[in-house]
């Protein structure tokens, strides 16, 4: 598992363990041993006290939806491959994305694959989980809790 399996473009970072943890089913953050500041996404250096002694910690994965959208005009990596059949009726239906607040100002971005756009509301209770895709890549999804 490489960091690129999550990030697409970037493979070299001190926080590569984040992706290994995702692969093992865990969403993790880092915490500064000196001042206790938590970072998600994880950082290998603390910008509060400028120290670099960090530990990995699990974070809560349940919380309230902070915001969301559904992007209909995707960037290159996410654009649908044109169907070969010229008269195909296949319609591109993108996946919504959102940001989940799990702890005070600790927020997880993820895909929202299982909820109709009309039913996604800011403030709704959701849970974040890692998910492995068919092509071997790994990402994070957000699903509703007790609808």
């Amino acid at each position: 598992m490489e960091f690129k399996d999550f990030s697409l473009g970037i493979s070299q970072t001190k926080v590569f363990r984040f992706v290994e943890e995702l692969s093992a089913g865990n969403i993790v953050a880092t915490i500064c041993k000196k001042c206790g500041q938590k970072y998600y996404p994880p950082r290998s250096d603390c910008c509060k006290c400028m120290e670099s002694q960090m530990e990995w910690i699990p974070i809560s994965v349940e919380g309230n939806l902070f915001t969301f959208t559904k992007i209909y005009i995707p960037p290159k990596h996410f654009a649908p491959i044109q169907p070969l059949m010229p008269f195909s009726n296949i319609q591109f239906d993108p996946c919504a994305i959102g940001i989940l607040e799990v702890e005070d100002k600790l927020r997880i971005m993820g895909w929202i694959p299982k909820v109709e756009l009309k039913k996604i509301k800011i403030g709704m209770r959701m849970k974040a989980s890692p998910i492995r895709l068919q092509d071997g890549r790994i990402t994070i999804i957000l699903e509703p809790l007790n609808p």
Partner: protein
Amino acid sequence: MKKVAIIGVGHGKFGVRSDASLRELAFEAIKTCLDDAGLSLKEVDGMVTGIAGDEFSFSLQPSAQIHDYIGFQPKPNFRVEGACATGSVALRTGWMSIASGLADIMLVVGVEKMTEVPTPVATEIMGRGGDAMWEYPFGTTFPGYYAMIANAHMAEFGTTEEQMAMVAVKNHYYGSLNPFAHMQKEVTLDKALSSFMVAYPLKLFDCSLITDGAAAIILASEEKAKSICKKPVWIVGLGFATDTMRISEREKLTSIQATREAAKIAYKMAGVGPRDIDIATVHDCFTIAEIIAYEDLGFCEKGEGGKLIESKETYIGGSIPVNVDGGLKAKGHPLGATGISMAIEITKQLRGEAGPRQVKDPEIGLTHNVGGTGQVVAVHIFRRE
């Protein structure tokens, strides 16, 4: 502190400029600017070039193409970058060169050539303008970020899709009167509301345009400005502020905090407040961004931005005319040129040279230029003699 004035402006035609390269676009604006100032390049001490993305221009040092093309060597020129606020960063750097005493006359040029790459590639380059490591893996685009901001604003303040579309209607109306604008046609509220979805809730007409274009300004010290220029426009306030890379780490999504910080600094330096501003150009990369800018710059109370456009207070004749050049929305948004273009509009308005879009006798103007989703923001205040 030394005083610095704008003594010349030159605006190139914005649009899909498949007829011209980066350096040729810059030449058009620089030539017009020199003519406006009545100067030759011999009298210019130095140059600053604003170009946001070298990925658009297939070049690691695009600014050198420009000084070479105008034959500026061996005088100093370098490039500055601040994403979509690059033009204002260039203006600020030009101001610093003169205020520090390093130069008396500076040329500041902003240029971007965005349409030579296909739209999905342009969308990707700008999407990676968010956090390429942590946000782009979720297929984020610039409309996507502002859509998340719009949803938050709608949920907290009841701002509507109609109110956002009204910003598009206003800016396209003024764009139709601006010969340099990319899109010179009006749109109706119905057309804006029924355009296709780009990123929910933002539709095609909520988004600014992918545009080629250049704009240039000549700045001068007080002594030079007074001896050369009949109608100098003084830069009296410069505010600049930054915020987190990821929108997920912001306190709230309903404000651009760096706008509030930069505005505070600029107002203080100029010794004025929001009520003193006669004309403003604000960063309407998306219609929601203009609504939030009204609030963050103090033109209305927090949460009242939607109502301000609904009551037409930001049209000419209203309490604060905003983006009467068409804004990024209709004039287009060539990243490096945008901040310079904003300052040119204010200069022309303060000189009384804005033609059919002239605001009645303005004395003080403001530009507001946001880089990315508010990672960097510049607010400048201008005053005529």
